[in-house]
């Protein structure tokens, strides 16, 4: 059993270490109002369609010294919003996201890539309409700082990837009126817990 003074010393060292930012595992929770996933897909030969998901949650852990971490994101598929409002009910239906059966889609990381202190990429698995497939996320503009209003420690980044929706079995319209490739862009802002 460690003595009280040892515990105190340990606590002090941990406090100093976590203040040094890169020396311990950091946990973050995404701010949903500033972390909305958005997508872009070609529609017919000359239109491009955009939309986003207004509800999602995310937990991130980072150990920048050990260059490890994890990302766990859950997106509420019922919150899909096409910028062409006629499409929302179609996208939520059986031919696309089938939100009645699959109200969430999730991303779970399997590996994180760092360049020094900065996260630059994440490998993981996306589960969408019940199908799980690997994806690689590119992370750019990763930076951390204190929120000027509430002084909380936070990090932000831009996450992008491109997927083929047919890989998840979402094939309606592919090759005819809609594209297969979906460009995904997610700004992330996450508060340190």
């Amino acid at each position, binding site marked *: 059993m460690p003595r009280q003074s040892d515990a105190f010393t340990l606590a002090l060292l941990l406090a100093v270490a976590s203040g040094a930012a890169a020396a311990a595992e950091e946990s973050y929770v995404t701010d949903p*109002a*500033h*972390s*909305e996933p*958005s997508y872009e897909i070609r*529609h*017919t*030969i*000359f*239109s*491009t*369609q*955009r939309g*986003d998901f*207004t509800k999602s949650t995310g937990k991130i852990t980072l150990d920048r010294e050990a260059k490890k971490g994890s990302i766990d994101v859950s997106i509420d598929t019922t919150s899909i*919003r096409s*910028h*062409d*409002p*006629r499409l929302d009910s179609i996208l939520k239906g059986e031919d696309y996201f089938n939100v009645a059966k699959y109200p969430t889609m999730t991303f779970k990381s399997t590996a994180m890539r760092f360049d020094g202190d900065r996260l630059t990429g994440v490998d993981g698995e996306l589960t969408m309409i019940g199908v799980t497939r690997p994806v690689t996320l590119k992370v750019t*503009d990763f*930076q951390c*700082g204190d*929120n*000027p209003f509430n002084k909380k420690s*936070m*990090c*932000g*980044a*831009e996450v992008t990837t491109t997927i083929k929706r047919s890989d998840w079995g979402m094939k309606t319209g592919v090759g*005819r*009126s809609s594209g297969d490739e979906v460009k995904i*862009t997610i*700004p*992330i*802002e996450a508060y340190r817990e």
Partner: protein
Amino acid sequence: MLLSGRSGCHVGALLFALATLIAPIRPAGAAEEAPVYRIDPDLTNAQFAVSHMGLSLQRGHFGRTRGTIVLDSESHTGRIDFVVDATSVDTGWAARDAFLRGEDMFDTTHYPVVRFRSTRLSFERARLVGVAGELTMHNITRPVELHVARFDCGKDPDSGREGCGAEVDTTIKRSDFGMSYALGIVGDDIGLSFQVTAFRVPPAGEEDAP
């Protein structure tokens, strides 16, 4: 059009005379014949992106837009008039949208419309590559240059109508338009990215105009 301007040269004078006869007629003729396209609001997306606290790039879009495009790819002439309903600003969060419509930002009570009017179109062969014009926002008008990253025309497989689609982008400074609130928190540079789809308006006399 050859205008030699050399007085006393018989051939030059003849060509000059011919040019002055032809020149005033051709532009008017071209304007009457130039294809007119109506922007399809449902298939057009006007998105903006701005830096938030230097940590992330936040996006929003305007749900209601309309406009007209006159485009003659052969004579390289045309005119674009694009109107955005500023009250349709949409960032996915109602409280933020209300703030953007408010007097510290767009002040849509007084200035509900954002408008772009072209002054010059740039082509590379038949392909539109750039548009110079004026943007009026928050009651201030400033010149802007739009970059046309993608421009395709063809027949829409869904409707059979002839149309064009373009991806257009530019960056503006909101402070140039008097929208300077919270410049330290929300960036000054606003990235504008429009995905525009417009269908040909059949010339007068033809049926089934949209």
